């Protein structure tokens, strides 16, 4: 394929208008010795039909699962058809960041609505237009807390998603911060006493997740209190966004920042990306948060309209003094999330309940198998941890049946050997789960 419209005549005419004899003259500024003499080592061009054939071939080397019991930060949820039809509107997906408000009211208003929904869902007052993903949202929140407070210690619960902790670690290393982990208790919740011990006046932020990586719901209020008492800020994450349909959001329980992965809201699994970093905060942090913010305002005729606002926080104006370096974000994923949440509306609660029922059912069925035990006692949403005689074997049996099994926790938590983190969403039917039990037992 070739997507350049120029005919040879066009090119000739343009060359003559510019006053050159050959295109090569345009590259005169590239020092001769660096001009590439040979062709790139890339396969030859394909017709569209060949492209489709080639790419279908690649896609078919993947094995799509029949069922998945895996959550662990990426969730299989049903996506209503409307979502795809809306994000497939060319006016949305072929636009750049809405720098020119008058011809970008579509995405601007949609993002403003998204921000509103996210602020409400997270129990905060404001939310930005999106971050790259849940993990970088958490990392940026941690860095922000440190920068605002001039403190250099960051505390993270050991029960936070292992990859999120790694990302926080990378960002915090780069800034020379000191990152400390707090263990979980037998219940699966954070060890509050250990936290309190670790909290001192150098702590900028405490990072937790609820539900945490084990699916366990944390008790946020006392954690917030403990942090605030030492002048630290609480950054609360979550795992599956649909949990916000039923669980008390951390913003209401005292978190200063609520960050997390919004993929559950209308975005496909996509092998890990693009996903949607949710970043919400108390209003008082509005002028310090990273990322784009859409605000409502008016034109000279008093008509309401929307613009990118508080841009003085941002890199293109503030440069090295910006609150973050983020520029492009995940606008289309945020649009999908907005459409998803508007489609579900209050039914999001019903969906969350259904997830709980399914998880409870699957858990109870697993616990009916000899040698299977619950690991944590605290309440869970749609994920839970079970110990079984041979976790590897369980997953192998499931894999052989085209089923993605549970997350093997010992990789990140050596103490949790033979412990599997399972997830059940509305995508699993009772029959599916009964089949799983047949395979495993």
């Amino acid at each position, binding site marked *: *394929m070739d997507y350049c419209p120029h005919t040879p005549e066009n090119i000739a005419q343009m060359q003559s208008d510019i006053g050159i004899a050959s295109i090569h003259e345009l*590259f005169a500024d590239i020092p001769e010795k660096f001009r590439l003499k040979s062709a790139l080592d890339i396969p030859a061009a394909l017709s569209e039909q060949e492209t489709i054939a080639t790419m279908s071939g*690649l896609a078919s080397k*993947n094995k799509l699962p029949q069922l998945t019991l895996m959550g662990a930060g990426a969730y299989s949820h049903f996506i209503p058809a409307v979502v795809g039809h809306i994000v497939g509107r060319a006016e949305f997906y072929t636009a750049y960041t809405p720098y020119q408000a*008058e011809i970008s009211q579509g*995405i601007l208003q949609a993002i403003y609505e998204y921000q509103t929904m996210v602020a409400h869902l997270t129990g905060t007052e404001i939310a930005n237009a999106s971050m790259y993903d849940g993990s970088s949202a958490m990392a940026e929140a941690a860095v922000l807390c440190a920068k605002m407070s001039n403190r250099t210690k960051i505390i993270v619960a050991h029960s936070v998603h292992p990859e999120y902790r790694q990302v926080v670690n990378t960002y915090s290393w780069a800034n*020379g911060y000191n990152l400390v982990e707090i263990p979980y208790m037998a219940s699966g919740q954070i060890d509050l006493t250990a936290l309190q011990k670790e909290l001192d006046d150098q702590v900028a932020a405490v990072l937790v997740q609820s539900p945490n990586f084990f699916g366990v719901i944390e008790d946020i209020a006392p954690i917030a209190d403990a942090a605030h008492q030492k002048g630290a800020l609480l950054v609360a994450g979550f795992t599956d966004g649909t949990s916000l349909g039923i669980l008390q959001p951390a913003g209401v329980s005292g978190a200063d920042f609520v960050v997390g992965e919004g993929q559950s809201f209308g975005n496909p699994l996509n092998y890990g990306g693009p996903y949607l970093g949710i970043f919400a905060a108390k209003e008082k942090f509005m002028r310090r948060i990273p990322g784009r913010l859409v605000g409502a305002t008016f034109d000279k005729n008093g008509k309401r309209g929307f613009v990118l606002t508080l841009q003085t926080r941002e890199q293109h104006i503030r440069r090295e003094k910006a609150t973050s370096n983020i520029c492009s974000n995940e606008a289309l994923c945020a649009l999908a999330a907005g459409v998803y949440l508007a489609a579900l509306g209050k*039914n999001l609660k019903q969906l969350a309940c259904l997830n709980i029922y399914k998880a409870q059912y699957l858990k109870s069925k697993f616990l009916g198998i000899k040698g299977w035990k619950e690991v944590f006692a605290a309440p869970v949403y749609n994920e839970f941890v079970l110990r079984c005689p041979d976790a590897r074997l369980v997953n192998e049996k499931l894999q052989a049946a085209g089923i993605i099994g549970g997350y093997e926790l010992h990789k990140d938590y050596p103490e949790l050997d033979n412990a599997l983190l399972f997830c059940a969403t509305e995508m699993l039917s009772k029959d599916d789960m009964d089949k799983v039990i047949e395979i495993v037992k």
Partner: protein
Amino acid sequence: MDLIFEISRTGRSAAAVSASDVPTINIDEAIGKKYLRTDLDLPEVAEVDLVRHYTNLSRRNFGVDLGFYPLGSCTMKYNPKVNENVAAFPGFTGLHPYCADESAQGNLQLLYEMQKYLSNIFGMTEFTLQPAAGAHGELTGVMMIKKYFEKKGEKRPIILIPDTAHGTNPASGALCGFETVTLRSNSDGVVDIEHLKSLMTEAVAGLMLTNPNTLGLFERNIEQVAQIVHDKGGLLYGDGANANAFLGKARPGDLGFDVIQLNLHKTFSTPHGGGGPGSGPVGVSAKLVDYLPVPRIIKSGNGYNWSDKFPNTIGRVRAFYGNFNVVVKAYTYIRSIGAEGLKHATEMAVLNANYIKEKLKPYFDQPYDRLCMHECVFSGSRQVAESGVHTSDIAKRLIDYGYHPPTIYFPLIVPEAIMIEPTETESKETLDTFCDAMIAIAAEAKENPQRVKESPLSTPVSRLDEVLAARKPDVAWNK
């Protein structure tokens, strides 16, 4: 238009949830009331109203599919539809990131080959595809520079940034704990070599250079620049946002760059989505390979596997593996146009920019009158002086002519900057009619400046009060 909240009516919904086929439980009891939320105030609309709301919103948005979008530095080329179709294959959208590697061999091969293609195109040793956007790639690259010196036991707290650099460059440096120092451009619009020499000390970790720079000019002295940086033990970082200017023509690796980030959503034709998702791969020279983020893909006799066994890695910069589905589109693009197509794209992009530069030269000031690469920068200063019409006015007036305005007021060193990047996918007719519009506006600015200042006249809202928006921020709707 009404907000989705304003058309919400209690009791409506566009998505019914299935009845439970498993026993229900008392959630208040099972989870505990204190953990449950008391209100859930999402919009309630029927599917018809939802679809009309968002469809009508979309019609208030301008995208490349509607017309010319010469937004400088953003490479808003037309994005072929086949890429969208391929990326929507269930085989690509449906996999969980933690599925077994054996179930994801297609994805892994695609990612692996993409790294190889990019390494070849840019002359780098290896690429990571983990960063989610250009700025994320910058951060990743700068982190590797930091790690490099940390491992060498050298303290280099400073990073140099040219005055023409994109704002993300200094911001990325800062987010990585570096002190940023500004490097001047000379009167030719390229790096001031003397200034570089004076700044480049052993306290400097490196220079973040964009080449061609944001003036659309190729850094002719690149060899010397690299030499100066390397001589002091520093590293040369490349902001690859402008890579559309040299595909198949020159390779940053050959030019002396040690690390470079790309924007697949610019150069490799993935649609920008109204502000993302993008993808910001980072390529490194041999020196920096050890520091790449994990996990990385290992190819062996058994196929492809993820591995995080790289002790010197900077770690992860995000969860999972990057914006995979965006990479699928870019990979498809590379495969469909091939090596020749990449080079041709660059040639046409540069041709188009020079064509516009030539056509508009009589009407707008040109701060640097040289052959440009893939974009050209004008100044609106003449118009300001003559009739008080600013670049922002010209930009808004272009909207009435049916175009997305160019990038304006960037690069910062050009007063009233107008930065035009036509890309290679535009026809001569499009370029001609766009130039006609610019010329007409230049005339209007003289004859009827008021009209230009009051533009746009054709949009659902006219210019919005940004000061009010910033002074009394309203970023979430309240009943």
